[in-house]
């Protein structure tokens, strides 16, 4: 058997519907989940193909997190032919995510790669030979999509902070390595206090990242949705209506939203990451120009675009240009201000983007919001929008990797205190560096060697 690692992931599609299933497969599946499940009968004692009722607990705090129904299916009579545990969570998205995070904190358990359950099922002979090609296509498409998401995230704040963290660790590693491989060179000897300090500050940085993750400030997920349009067509009002709290400044002066504002909302169970943008128009104002440029980059990034047009004005040149740029994108056209007389040529708009849904609204009078929700829901359930679940899974993965990196650094600190030689402490530091690398998708071994030779002057 090639696969002995135990893997976990959310097995159900995101969206409406209260139930989410977290699937765990591999030799550690039953004992791992048993460790975080409070139930009348221990899960390790449950018979195969039975359901156990209980609560998932946070082992650190002892607090019960979620009420769950847990199904045990012993291999080979399971989807993957390995021991499988499925945790049914009723609390919706947030609850499922919390449970997955706790599951992934268990030792010897990692998040499943794209298509990995299916791959295991195939390699274990559970899937018909004729399906090999379909299995391959699934792995290919899932991993390509998650790659795209990872690339997008690589430019984000989280990624920058992780890269900085990794850089400090690789400097420490290079220093340790030089001490080992060039013992007679006049390079400063690595001391235990140096290692302790470096690991300590890295640990502090990870702690902060985990804290922000818990507060949902950085590692938030959702379908990236940009609200775009000319100045003063009602973009911020729409955003406000959607989040029902006033964050963007709403005035009647065109061009008051000069930055991109982010909000996270859940519409009918669909997570959206909303970007409100500055109005797009030709401008000479320097500050506004920056805002306009950011709007364009938000347009690039978004999976879904809500293009807001003013029903009360004829189509503007800027808008025509924008319509041209949005062909082949997922766009919902919002014809705002239905309370005012129609001066807009709706037919022209419809011809420009024939595949887009059109939603007439009056944001001011709170009309049409339900239709907008309906339009988004349709797109989502027709499968037109799906990046979100990938972001979602990768975030749970990030949190578990951050925890593991912190564990490794703690090991390094305590090993140093115990007088363990640096070449062994190095193992823990290196593990932390590699785990962080998995978050940003970079685990190349060669760069340590590069770092050694760029940081130190060595030679014969």
């Amino acid at each position, binding site marked *: 058997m090639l696969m002995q690692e135990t893997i976990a992931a959310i097995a159900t599609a995101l969206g409406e519907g209260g139930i989410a299933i977290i699937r765990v497969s591999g030799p550690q599946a039953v004992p791992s989940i048993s460790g975080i499940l409070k139930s009348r009968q221990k899960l390790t004692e449950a018979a195969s193909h039975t359901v156990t009722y209980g609560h998932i607990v946070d082992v650190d705090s002892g607090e019960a997190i979620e009420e769950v129904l847990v199904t045990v299916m012993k291999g080979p009579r399971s989807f993957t032919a390995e021991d499988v545990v499925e945790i049914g969570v009723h609390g919706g998205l947030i609850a499922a995510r919390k449970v997955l995070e706790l599951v992934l904190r268990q030792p010897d358990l990692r998040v499943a790669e794209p298509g990995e359950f299916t791959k295991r099922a195939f390699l274990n002979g559970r899937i018909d030979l004729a399906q090999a090609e379909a299995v391959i296509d699934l792995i*290919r498409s899932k991993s390509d999509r998650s790659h795209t998401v990872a690339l997008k995230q690589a430019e984000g704040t989280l990624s920058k902070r992780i890269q900085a963290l990794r850089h400090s660790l690789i400097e420490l590693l290079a220093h340790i390595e030089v001490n080992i491989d*060039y013992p007679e060179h006049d390079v400063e000897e690595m001391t235990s206090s140096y290692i302790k300090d470096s690991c300590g500050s890295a640990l502090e940085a990870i702690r902060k990242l985990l804290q922000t993750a818990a507060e949902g400030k950085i590692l938030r997920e959702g379908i990236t949705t940009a609200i775009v349009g000319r100045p003063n067509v009602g973009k911020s009002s729409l955003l406000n209506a959607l989040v029902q709290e006033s964050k963007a400044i709403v005035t009647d002066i065109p061009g008051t939203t000069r930055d991109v504002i982010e909000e996270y909302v859940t519409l009918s169970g669909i997570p959206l990451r909303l970007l409100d943008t500055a109005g797009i128009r030709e401008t000479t104002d320097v500050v506004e120009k920056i805002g306009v440029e950011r709007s364009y980059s938000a347009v690039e990034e978004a999976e879904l675009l809500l293009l807001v047009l003013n029903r009360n004005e004829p189509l503007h040149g800027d808008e025509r240009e924008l319509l041209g740029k949005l062909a082949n994108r997922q766009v919902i056209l919002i014809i705002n201000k239905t309370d005012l007389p129609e001066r807009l040529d709706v037919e022209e708009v419809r011809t420009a983007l024939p595949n887009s849904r059109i939603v007439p609204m009056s944001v001011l009078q709170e009309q049409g919001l339900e239709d907008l929700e309906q339009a988004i829901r349709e797109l989502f359930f027709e499968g037109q929008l799906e990046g979100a679940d990938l972001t979602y899974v990768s975030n749970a993965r990030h949190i578990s990797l951050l925890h593991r990196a912190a564990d490794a650094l703690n090991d390094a600190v305590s090993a140093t205190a115990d007088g363990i*030689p640096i070449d*062994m402490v190095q193992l823990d530091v290196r593990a932390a560096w590699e785990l962080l690398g998995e978050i940003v998708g970079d685990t*190349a071994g060669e760069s340590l060697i590069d770092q050694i030779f760029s940081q130190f002057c060595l030679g*014969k």
Partner: protein
Amino acid sequence: MSYAAGQYDVLVIGAGHAGCEAALAAARMGCETLLLTINLDMVAFMPCNPSIGGPAKGHVVREIDALGGEMGRNIDKTYIQMRMLNTGKGPAVHALRAQADKFEYQHMMKKTIEETPRLTLRQGMAEELIVEDGVCVGVITKTGAKYRAKSVVVTTGTYLRGKVIMGELIYESGPNNQQPSLRLSQSLKENGFELVRFKTGTPPRVHKDSIDFSKMEIQPGDDKPKFFSFETEYANNEQLPCWLTYTSEDTHRIINDNLHRAPMFSGVIEGTGPRYCPSIEDKIVRFADKPKHQIFLEPEGKNTSEYYVQGLSTSMPEDVQLGILRSIPGLEKVEMMRTGYAIEYDAVVPTQLWPSLETKVLPGLFTAGQINGTSGYEEAAGQGVIAGINAARKVQGKDPVIVERSQGYIGVLIDDLVTKGTNEPYRLLTSRAEYRLLLRHDNADLRLTPTGYEIGLISEERYAKFLEKKSLVEGELARLRTVKIRPEEAEAMLREFNSTPLQNTIDALTLLRRPEISYAQVEPFAPAPNELSEDMKEQVEIQVKYAGYIEKQQLQVERLGKMEKKKIPDDINYSLVHGLASEAKQKLGTIRPLNIGQASRIAGVTPADISILLVHLDHYSRTRAARSS
């Protein structure tokens, strides 16, 4: 023109550190072997530093020894200094380093070769490969001798189209003004090999009597030297010290004033040099804020006055070199005996090799050493012994021997070369090994002696001794677990070594786990019934003390070992594997990895590609099984 000069099993071209090991291994395995070299006086010559070993490299020497190679025995006979490095760090990175009497080293190796049955040593320059039906079957020399062989091992070092550079002076030459090999490159190219141009260099040598040692710091050898070979029980060679000094402000000024004459910066050097062994001019430019650089003076032997100036590798013009030398404290009046130089040479792109070191391009042809893009005597010798073993096994119709990454640095070295290739002369570092804790120099014999014995390079006598050591160590580990120590017994000793008093009776093994307690402290409470050597005690102590870390790595090896065992059929056509990314198809098709483990180490092959490959292989084998039943 040419004449039939003989038929051999194995033919080795080049008698440097790789060639000597290859030829000795093949002959000792029963093959009629010919070792050809341009100049018989250059057998096992050390064109650069007169030393062997150090971190990773010293480990390789012990591995060569465990496989039945010669380098360890030879340096144990001819050392003029032994030093254990890194003793303040963990046992895995302790490293033995010897200063060699470079002339005695050569003579001793030549003598061993001359006295080895079935091995013929001959002077001659190989110029052309003989290829029949796509297989290499011999070579033709400059003098027209046609040698035929079943396997050919090419170990040309820096001789292939060698070019020496000193400032403005450039001429065709091998190392140390030897004749270069100008024709063989062409023959390799004609047979489909892709070559690259690499560069290395060496510092000047100076006369002992012109050195003022009073201005330098002495670096003596160890009082109780350890040895490289399992077979060396005792040697008490006279030891000579090395000397430490530093560059001065003047040195840096002279170099900066003459940078326009440095070939490194004037653009005449086209070969890629190694970053880990930069020239002094390179160091001063790249690390401009470093006020001084370390210089070691190493004796080149007992019967010579030449000293090697480590840290001063350079390709500056001769007059500048002299100025640089004389700006260094202790070398104010120094006499330069040999000028330092840079040398460029041709190497084979190593991804053209199988892990056995046979070339994919030309069956029957093996390459080893610097021609494969490495640097260092030990790296060369490690490849040499493997190439020799596999050349002989090919003649004997046996499967090649491949050292796994988890088995030895030799495995790490060869796998890196053939799987990833290299952009610069490759040097082994302990940080290249993912299982550094398992690849210790103290257990090289445990890791590889069984292989050496199996292939016939380890004598019965030595193997019996090895098994005895192994069983004594294992027995002692088991025994320590059964010996109980009461709190009051150990009280005084624990106080003396600042160790926490015992609460309960514990076994000796558990006590030995404490970092501050060594075997010597535990021994009085648990006297061993068998007389254990120092080596064995060390082995016991290491295995107990670092058990946790060692087990962690062992577990990793087992996990990944499954990937290494999953073989890829050699007739696989990657372009027909549905779903593989095109980059993966191209890379896999070039490298042709033997197993999934190797495939996963290729740059540009993603985990998704590996998953797809696994599904494909499974499909392939199930379909085949279905067809045959």
